[in-house]
C-alpha cells in the first residue's frame, strides 16, 4: 500500500510543472507578467493586451497543454477561429457597429490622408525584407503599420502564422503608445501656422447617405481587392446595421456581447501562440523595432499629405489631422485634437480628424487585401 502511495506521489511530482519547466518558459512567464502589468496598471489597450498576456502565461505553463499548438487542448480549439480567419472579421463587425462615418462622408478628401498613412505598411515591408524576413513574414510585419489589430492578426494568420505572437504583442503595444509616438513626428513635420489652422464646420450628413455608404464601399473595395472582402464586408455590415436604424437588437449585440466574446477568444488564443520557442528569438526583437518604424512612417505619411492638402486648398485643411489616418480609432484622432489645441486652445479638430481616422481603417483593410493577393 505504502509503495503504491509513494509511486503515485512520485508520478505526480515527475509530471508537475516544477520538474518540467524550461528556462524559456520561465522567461516567458516573466514577460507575460510584465505585459499584464502594462495592461492593468498602465492601461495599455487592456481589452486585448490582458487576454493576450494571460494567454501567453497559460501557454508557457509546463505540462498544461494550453498553447495554441497543443492539439486537443482548450486553447487549440479556440485558436481555430484565428487560424481560419474567423475572429478578426467578426471583430470588424462590432467595430463597424460602433463607427460613425459621418465626418468622412462630409469631407471625403479625408480619404486621401487615410491612404497616405498606409505608407508605413509598405516601407516597413521593405525594412523587414532587409532584415532577412521572407516576403510573407515581411508583409505580416508591415501590416502592423496599419495600426489595426484585427487586420494585423488576419493577415498574419494567413501569411506567417508563426509570427502571430510577437506581431500581436507589437501591434497592440504600439497602438497604446500612439499618444507618445505621434506628437513629436507631427510637430517636426509641420509649422506653427499650419498647426493653428481652424477648419470650417462639417456639413450635416443625411441618413440616406449614411445608409448608401457602407453598401457601395463594400461592393467597390471587394471588387478591386477580393481578399479584403471579409474585413471590409463585415465592417460595413456592422455599420449598416447601425445606420439603417431597423436592426437595433442586432446592432446592440454586435457592438457589445458579440465583440466582447470574440475579443476574449481572440486575445487568449493569440497570446497562447507565444510559446518560448516562437517568441524568444532574434526575430521578435526585429519585429518590435520594425513596428515602431511602421507607426512612425504611417504618421509621417499622413501628415505630409495633410501638408500637401493644406497648400492645395489654400490653408483650409490642418495637416495635423493627417496623422489620424493611422487607423487607431479614436486614439489617433484624439492626438490630433490635443496637438492642435496646444497650438490654438479654441481649435476643435476631433471631428475633422475622425474622417481620416476611419478612412484609415478602410485603407489598411485594402492594403491587407493587396498584400494577401500578392503574397499568399
Amino acid at each position, binding site marked *: 500500500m505504502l509503495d503504491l502511495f509513494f509511486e503515485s506521489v512520485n508520478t505526480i511530482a515527475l509530471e508537475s510543472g516544477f520538474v518540467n519547466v524550461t528556462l524559456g518558459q520561465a522567461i516567458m512567464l516573466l514577460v507575460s507578467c510584465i505585459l499584464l502589468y502594462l495592461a492593468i496598471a498602465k492601461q495599455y489597450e487592456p481589452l486585448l493586451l490582458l487576454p493576450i498576456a494571460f494567454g501567453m502565461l497559460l501557454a508557457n505553463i509546463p505540462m498544461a497543454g494550453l498553447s495554441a499548438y497543443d492539439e486537443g487542448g482548450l486553447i487549440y480549439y479556440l485558436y481555430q477561429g484565428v487560424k481560419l480567419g474567423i475572429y478578426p472579421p467578426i471583430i470588424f463587425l462590432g467595430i463597424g457597429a460602433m463607427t460613425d462615418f459621418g465626418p468622412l462622408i462630409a469631407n471625403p478628401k479625408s480619404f486621401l490622408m487615410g491612404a497616405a498613412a*498606409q505608407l508605413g505598411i509598405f516601407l516597413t*515591408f*521593405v525594412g523587414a525584407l532587409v532584415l532577412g524576413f521572407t516576403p510573407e513574414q515581411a*508583409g505580416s510585419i508591415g501590416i502592423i503599420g496599419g495600426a489595426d489589430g484585427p487586420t494585423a492578426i488576419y493577415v498574419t494568420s494567413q501569411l506567417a502564422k508563426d509570427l502571430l505572437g510577437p506581431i500581436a504583442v507589437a501591434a497592440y503595444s504600439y497602438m497604446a503608445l500612439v499618444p507618445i509616438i505621434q506628437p513629436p513626428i507631427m510637430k517636426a513635420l509641420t509649422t506653427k501656422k499650419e498647426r493653428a489652422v481652424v477648419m470650417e464646420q462639417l456639413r450635416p450628413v*443625411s441618413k440616406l447617405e449614411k445608409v448608401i455608404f457602407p453598401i457601395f464601399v463594400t461592393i467597390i473595395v471587394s471588387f478591386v*481587392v477580393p481578399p479584403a472582402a471579409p474585413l471590409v464586408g463585415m465592417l460595413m455590415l456592422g455599420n449598416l446595421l447601425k445606420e439603417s436604424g431597423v436592426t437595433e437588437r442586432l446592432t446592440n449585440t454586435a457592438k457589445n456581447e458579440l465583440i466582447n466574446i470574440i475579443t476574449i477568444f481572440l486575445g487568449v488564443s493569440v497570446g497562447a501562440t507565444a510559446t518560448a520557442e516562437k517568441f524568444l528569438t532574434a526575430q521578435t526583437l526585429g519585429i518590435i523595432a520594425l513596428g515602431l518604424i511602421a507607426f512612425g512612417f504611417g504618421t509621417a505619411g499622413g501628415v505630409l499629405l495633410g501638408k500637401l492638402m493644406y497648400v492645395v486648398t489654400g490653408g483650409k485643411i490642418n495637416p495635423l489631422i493627417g496623422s489620424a489616418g493611422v487607423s487607431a480609432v479614436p486614439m489617433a484622432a484624439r492626438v490630433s485634437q490635443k496637438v492642435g489645441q496646444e497650438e490654438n486652445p479654441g481649435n476643435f479638430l476631433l471631428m475633422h480628424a475622425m474622417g481620416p481616422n476611419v478612412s484609415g481603417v478602410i485603407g489598411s483593410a*485594402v492594403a491587407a487585401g493587396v498584400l494577401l493577393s*500578392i503574397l499568399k
Partner: protein
Amino acid sequence: MFANIDWTMAGAVVITGLVVVFVVLVLLWFIVELMGKILSGFGKPKNLSQPPVKAVEKDKKQLPIKSQMEIEGGITDEVVAVITAAISAIEGTGNFVLRSIRQSYSGKRSAWASAGIEQNTRLF
C-alpha cells in the same frame, strides 16, 4: 543579416500596394462627393421654388395660425423653444408650423417607465 533581397519583387509589392490603396480610396472619395452632391441637390431646388411662390400666401395665413398656436398652461416658453428645436433637429428642416403643445397623460407612469416598457415589448 542583410539578405539578398529580390528588389524587383519588393518594388512591385510596394508600388502596387500604394497605387491600389490610393486608387481605391480616391475612387471612394469621388463617389462620396458625387453622392453628396446628388442627394443635397434633391433638397435644394424644391426649397428654392416653393418659398417665393407660397411666401405671400403663407404670410397672410401665418399670422392667424400663430395666434391660434395652443400651448397648454404650465408649459413655459423655454420648453416650447426646446420642443421646437427638437422637432427641427429630427425633421432636418425648420419648414413646419407648430400648432399646439399639450402634456400627454399616460396613467401614472413617468416618461422613462413608459419608454422602458415600450422598448421591452417591442416586436422582433
